[in-house]
């Protein structure tokens, strides 16, 4: 095993009234690893995601990040520990230029307090963080746009901004919510390169994806969800021909 698991999920269960969206789910993600999570619509991928990020409260289970239980913590605390996320439908802060959006992602990394801000002692840190944010904007390929109004970005550029903003929080685990959704083929290829680059920095990546053609070449391991249950888990080439996966995606006739 190349490195220790940074995220360990055990027995995770979420019920919405009578509906069990996620049922005794267990998996782990290691540092620098890209774990793909696939499944048809309504399989519980997004719910899993929201449980890890703290947006939903779990009914039962355990989510350990860097050895510590994070289930039950509010989302901002989970972010502060180093779990950042992107949103499937781009959700930039409209009232700010690109670089300020990225700086919001770095919110938890600012050391200076309010008094230092008012007293002017925080200006040096602000300058440093701004420089770092510009580097991240460059890294995702928006280098020429740090001061652009977010409303002028294309959909694909908006997705890149999501990634730069999440990276600014210096995550140890990055959660991608269907990052390829709505992108052109060329944009998808560029995105795959960026995600590989992120994992190469030692950041663990959990990728929820609908599109197998995007995910399978990118992920090192893949977990398959259907009706809130993990039905398969393995290397991409194993998943490609797994009977349970074919059935979930194509219906029982295809598997037969």
């Amino acid at each position: 095993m190349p490195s220790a698991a940074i995220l360990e999920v055990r027995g995770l269960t979420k019920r919405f009234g009578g509906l069990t969206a996620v049922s005794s789910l267990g998996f782990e993600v290691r540092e620098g690893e890209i774990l793909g999570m696939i499944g048809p619509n309504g399989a519980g991928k997004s719910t899993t995601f929201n449980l890890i990020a703290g947006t939903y409260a779990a009914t039962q289970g355990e989510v350990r990040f860097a050895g510590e239980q994070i289930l039950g913590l509010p989302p901002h605390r989970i972010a502060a520990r180093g779990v950042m996320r992107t949103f499937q439908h781009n959700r930039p802060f409209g009232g700010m230029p690109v670089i300020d959006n990225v700086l919001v992602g770095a919110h938890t990394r600012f050391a200076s307090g309010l008094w230092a801000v008012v007293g002017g002692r925080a200006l040096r840190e602000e300058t440093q963080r701004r420089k770092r944010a510009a580097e991240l904007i460059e890294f995702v390929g928006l280098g020429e746009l740090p001061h652009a109004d977010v409303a002028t970005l294309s959909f694909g550029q908006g997705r890149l901004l999501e990634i730069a903003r999440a990276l600014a929080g210096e995550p140890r685990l990055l959660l991608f919510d269907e990052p390829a959704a709505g992108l052109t083929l060329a944009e998808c290829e560029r995105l795959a390169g960026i995600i590989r680059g992120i994992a190469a920095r030692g950041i663990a990546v959990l990728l929820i994806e609908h599109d197998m053609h995007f995910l399978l070449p990118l992920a090192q391991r893949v977990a398959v969800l259907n009706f809130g249950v993990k039905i398969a888990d393995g290397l991409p080439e194993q998943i490609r021909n797994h009977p349970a996966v074919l059935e979930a995606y194509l219906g029982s006739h295809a598997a037969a």
Partner: protein
Amino acid sequence: MSSLLRWLGAALLLAGAAFLLSDYHNDVYRKLLLWVTLALSYNFLFGICGQIAFSHFAFYGIGAYSVVIFLFQFHLPFPLAILLGIALCILFALAVAIPSARLEGFYLALATLALAQLFIVVLNEGGAVTGGPGGLANYKLPEFLGTRIRGPWYTAVIVLLLLGTLAVLWRLDRSWFGRACRAVRDNPEVAAAMGVDVARTKVTAFTLTSALAGIAGMVYAFVDNTVNPPIFGLDNAFLLLFMVIVGGAGRHAGAIIGAALLFLVPFVLSPLIGHHHVLVFGVLVVAAILLQPRGLVGLYDAIRRHP
């Protein structure tokens, strides 16, 4: 360095103007400066942090009344009276903001409306301490280092108050805190995912801006040398809201322009059309909301972009 010179230049210019004005015009000028100061801090709360609160004028009143009461009813030393006045504003602000922050924005509006109304009731019913409906009068600014600041020199104090408030808000706005405020305004759920403690950010912004309003109130207490309930009523709380909307919410320049414009409208128009100036005022506010939600500053931006 050049930024320091710019601030210094602004201070000299704004304060210098006071020495050229008559007593009457100095009085108008002082009120203008105070309105701009209040609009700046209210803009941070409403325009930048997106919190709809009607208590800003009440905090202005709490500052004004508390400094007068601590000084002349309880005979406390001047610096202590000021510190206690600020502490009182912070206490009230926390008492309103902490329970409201966990709820949707609508509840803050209601809670602050209640506070503003309650404040007026307390002033009216406060007996000898608050002076009742007539308020408190016949007091003077205490001497400081053997001199009493008067006339245009006191106007200069208000200029310092304005620039000090602007400097504090300016720095806050261009920091992690200002960005967190804007993020909370635009999308609290995403802000939380980015690590922003939404409730804490709201409470901090509310408390800070309310304390700034309180400090402005303390300075105001020695402008007319009288404090009475009607000044701090809801009429002025709404006027403040309109100033920020007309000027352009979320921008310091918007708050300054809006406050100056709406404050000066009656002075210019009432000699011409009497009380109908209220009508002009109403049309201006409605037009701003319908035609240009980003206010006069937004209009200026639009013109500059497409000349």
